[in-house]
């Protein structure tokens, strides 16, 4: 055992802190030794119980361990006394005047050690210790999950950022590892891939430009749209054609559909990279700014009403045909290219005064009901709010 340096009050605070840390480390090692010693003693007792022939040897071992443990306890007591004197365990020296802004490391009641409380680094270190503890907790949790729920292993591999589990663990116990397969696959019907859906919509509606991006990319783009709109010296704001993440749709969270001069629609996918839409919003092609997102609301009445109706359509598609909800939604959105040109299917006018809202609006309600297995759903009709009956 190395000779201990006495940390007198004449020592500079950094040295005292360093020594306190050293002693805490030593204390931890001693505690570990004591635990090991206790394990060995128990083992010796068990062995001698099972094997009476070895009982003498076991007794020798036990006595040896007992000596060692006694020494460890004494050392621990000494170290503990030193730590107590230097104020580590009680935090008594925190308010010492000449501590240079350094404080003694503190052992918290839950066992965590706050090493350095340098004023400059206070937040960082406290944060660091919190981060470490969170990481340890997560590791412990993951280990336990792996141990008790092995069938959820595949889901964990497939979903990058999200822990949403669609089906309860007991439904489909997974015995083979197939990381490339989506956990939502039903044995009878293949869920279409995002790239295929977008390609088919693009073919169906050539007048609509479709682009995709990640969530953070979208918020940057929304801001840049605001500055483009403000610059009225531009004859026409150039539509930035975002390149689709060719080949890699895993992180796509926002789909943007633009019908030139008519609308800009944002659809968000949740989780990112899936084909499950979770929100939709219509905007004027003039609009730009941070409020432009799938849960935002346009400043214009016409688009506000279309967005409200779109929420209902989305809920309907999600409940009636979840695997194809995105396809149906995108087709339905594209049918709005004629928002400002198609007359109402009931009154045959384009603009109508809505008495309750006191607004002049074009037909903003396009029925979304799907008819049985008809793939050629064209969503061709449109109604004013007052003209649409309750069941369309």
């Amino acid at each position, binding site marked *: 055992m190395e000779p201990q340096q006495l940390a007198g009050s004449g020592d500079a605070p950094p040295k005292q802190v360093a020594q306190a840390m050293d002693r805490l480390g030593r204390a931890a090692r001693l505690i570990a030794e004591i635990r090991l010693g206790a394990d060995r003693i128990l083992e010796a007792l068990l062995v001698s119980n099972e094997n009476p022939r070895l009982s003498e040897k076991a007794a020798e071992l036990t006595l040896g361990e007992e000596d060692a443990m006694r020494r460890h306890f004494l050392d621990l007591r000494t170290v503990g006394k030193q730590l107590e004197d230097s104020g580590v365990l009680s935090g008594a020296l925190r308010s010492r005047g000449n501590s240079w802004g350094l404080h003694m490391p503190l052992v918290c009641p839950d066992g965590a050690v706050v090493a350095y409380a340098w004023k400059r680094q206070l937040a960082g270190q406290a944060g660091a210790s919190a981060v470490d503890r969170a990481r340890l907790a997560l590791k412990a949790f993951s280990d336990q999950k792996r141990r008790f729920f092995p069938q959820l292993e595949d889901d964990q591999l497939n979903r990058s950022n999200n822990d949403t589990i669609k089906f309860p663990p007991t439904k489909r116990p997974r015995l083979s590892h197939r990381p490339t397969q989506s956990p939502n696959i039903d044995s009878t019907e293949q869920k279409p891939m995002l790239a295929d859906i977008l390609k088919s919509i693009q073919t169906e509606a050539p007048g609509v430009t479709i682009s995709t991006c990640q969530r953070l990319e979208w918020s940057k783009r929304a801001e840049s749209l605001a500055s483009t709109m403000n610059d009225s010296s531009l004859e026409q704001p150039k539509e930035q054609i975002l390149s689709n993440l060719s080949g890699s749709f895993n992180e796509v969270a926002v789909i943007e559909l633009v019908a030139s001069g*008519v609308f800009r629609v944002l659809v968000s996918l949740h989780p990112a990279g899936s084909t499950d839409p979770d929100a939709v919003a219509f905007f*004027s092609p003039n609009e730009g700014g941070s409020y432009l997102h799938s849960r935002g609301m346009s400043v214009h009445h016409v688009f506000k009403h279309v967005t409200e109706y779109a929420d209902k359509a989305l809920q309907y598609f999600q409940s009636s045909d979840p695997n194809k909800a995105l396809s149906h939604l995108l087709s339905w959105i594209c049918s709005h290219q004629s928002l400002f040109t198609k007359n109402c299917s009931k009154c045959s006018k384009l*603009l109508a005064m809505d008495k309750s809202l006191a607004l002049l609006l074009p037909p903003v309600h396009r029925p979304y009901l799907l008819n049985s297995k008809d793939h050629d759903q064209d969503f061709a009709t449109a109604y004013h709010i007052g003209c649409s009956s309750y069941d369309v």
Partner: protein
Amino acid sequence: MPVKWLMHFQPNQGTTLTSQVMAEACAVAESFPGVSRDGRWRSSMTFYRAVPRDQSLPAPSDLPRDLIGISLHDLPNEYLFVMRSQRLILRAHSSVQTVMDKLQSYKGRFFINFEGLQYKWGDFKLRIGKCLYNPNEALRGIVMEVEYLPLSSIDKSQRVMEEFYEIWREAVASKLLAGQFINTEVNFVEYGLGDSYTPQHTAVLYGMCVVQVIASSNKNQ
């Protein structure tokens, strides 16, 4: 920039235009449910004529003799010039008027002010105003500007604006005003302007509209 249509009031044959018409037109606007008054508006127009440097020499033929300068209510920091003969429009900072005054290459011949009331109606903005000849404030016409905020494409908004125009005309007729509003039809392509609406489009509309207003006012006098 949202699309706009500009109309002027054409009094019936034999009737003269009075300020009463302005009040009646505002009453028509206010009769629609949901319309709210949104303050006043004011634009102005200057008719410039070229001042030859040397009176004895003939004026160079490539320079325009007449120039219209327009200050729009929604662009206080800008000034637009329209050369109708050459079909050219220029956008400049509002301080160019000081430059014009100093240069004296063009002199303001006469001036027209537009002023009146502004209304908000859902996604539409209406501006009804008198067209006043400066300096004697003689009423030359009544104009109405209609703006549809959600759209900037002239082509895509055509049908919406047409239907609005019909609704407006029917309301005006039903209130028995002594005349009707006529829309200013302009071929923007001739001025090199595209489908996306800009202040240049507004300048051209005003230029054209004022000519019609003055013509109709002269006819009725």
